[in-house]
């Protein structure tokens, strides 16, 4: 299944992420779900993750983990592990990410193409394309 969405603003990208994690896009998001985000810098991946967190009932800050690689958000209906492989050019296998993916929550991975070995056919694959300053094409595959 593949669905294409066009969002016209960062807010719309957040809303789409929220719909996904609430199950409103026909994909069940539950304990152990892995959502792989790909697409260039500025594509909307962190905004989309904000929406996923909102959909899980987490209302705190969701900030880019590019610097720290991993943020963990608790307090919603499920823990959310927010991973960003932006800086990781090699050595992904040394990070121990399996512990999160096989853990108690939902895992979102930005720049997921750098860790393809972590995914299987249950992974929700999402691609972000830059159309212009505000518009993004978001392709969700399951």
């Amino acid at each position, binding site marked *: 299944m593949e669905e294409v969405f066009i969002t016209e603003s*960062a807010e719309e990208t957040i809303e789409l992420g929220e719909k996904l994690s609430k199950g409103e896009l026909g994909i069940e998001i539950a304990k152990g779900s892995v959502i792989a985000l790909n697409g*260039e*810098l*500025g594509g909307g991946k*962190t*905004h989309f993750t904000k929406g996923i967190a909102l959909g899980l009932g987490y209302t705190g*800050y969701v*900030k*880019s983990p*590019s*610097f*720290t*690689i*991993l943020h*963990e958000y608790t307090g919603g209906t499920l823990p959310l592990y927010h991973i960003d492989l*932006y*800086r*990781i*050019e*090699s*050595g992904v296998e*040394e*990070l*121990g990410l399996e512990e999160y993916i096989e853990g108690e929550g939902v895992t979102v991975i930005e720049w997921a193409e750098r860790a393809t070995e972590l995914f299987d056919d249950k992974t929700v694959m999402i691609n972000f394309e*830059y159309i*212009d*300053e505000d518009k993004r094409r978001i392709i969700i595959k399951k």
Partner: protein
Amino acid sequence: MLTLGIESSCDDTSCAVLKDKDEVLSCVVSSQDDIHSLYGGIVPELASRRHIEMVVPVVEEALKRAGVGITDIGAIAATRGPGLVGSILIGLNFAKAVAYAHKLPLIGVNHLEAHAQAAFLKDKDGAGATTPEFPFIALIVSGGHTSLLYVTDHTSYELLGQSRDDAAGEAFDKVAKLLGLGYPGGVAIDRLSKGVDPGLVEFKRPIISKGNLEFSFSGIKTAVLTYLKKNNIEKEDLSEDVIAPIASGFQEAAVDVLVKKCVWAMEAKYTDNLVISGGVACNSRLREKLSLLSEKEGFKFFAPPPRYCSDNAAMIAFLGGQMLSAGDESGLDLNATPDFLS
């Protein structure tokens, strides 16, 4: 009394010895930039392994430079967060072991709160010749944080605002990557922008709304990307002539936002004292603009020397000493707190 401080929240292992709470006898920082530059950034597992290797030699070196032994130390302070949990735990557990073995009081310190106190550090090279008066506004700005604090004494503050998305230092690093510059990107952008007219390429200042004290730096990175795309600038076109005006324009936009929000924070809290700290507080354009503005507007501006702005253990030892005086000692069950507000 001598206080030993240990800092390991991110990629630097640091140890410092302070005398009488604020006099830095030694401060040793072992940077991991050489390892992480291979990866284009911090790698948590590598960071904690390197901390394990570095913590003992760094502590020994700090004691040696201070001319003291571990038995001369009266208290030990260590970072308990925020940061990478695996890294924090190395310094924190080392500190606990030393505290237990030598029966010393242990103080777990919040890294960001310690940054806000960096302007009080004094050393023989002239740091801390003048120190701020309370209350003051502190801008803590680095690769992991962009926060404005209203600081009322050494151990009390109010968080006025922080970044909603990317930290300022992260925006510098990401823009540096877009421009084909290496890690750490902030230093490269600062250097490249020197003497380059920041008005050649202008970027919109992400202020959110007038008076708002939160930050948003993710849009400015997208703006640089949009600029590159609109002008069909490809990777192979990234010569210094092409990227210097972009770097300078971006830096000016980011610095303008930081400056503006510092001023708004001072206005909101009716104070005319400002302290900046954190890795991005080393940025020469930020220092220059705040310094000029402080003369023009008549506020007092304190920027600790770069050695105490970037991550260091002297600020940890300082705040630890203040906390101990206030009766805020930690037990050996102290745990790492990776999030800022916990």
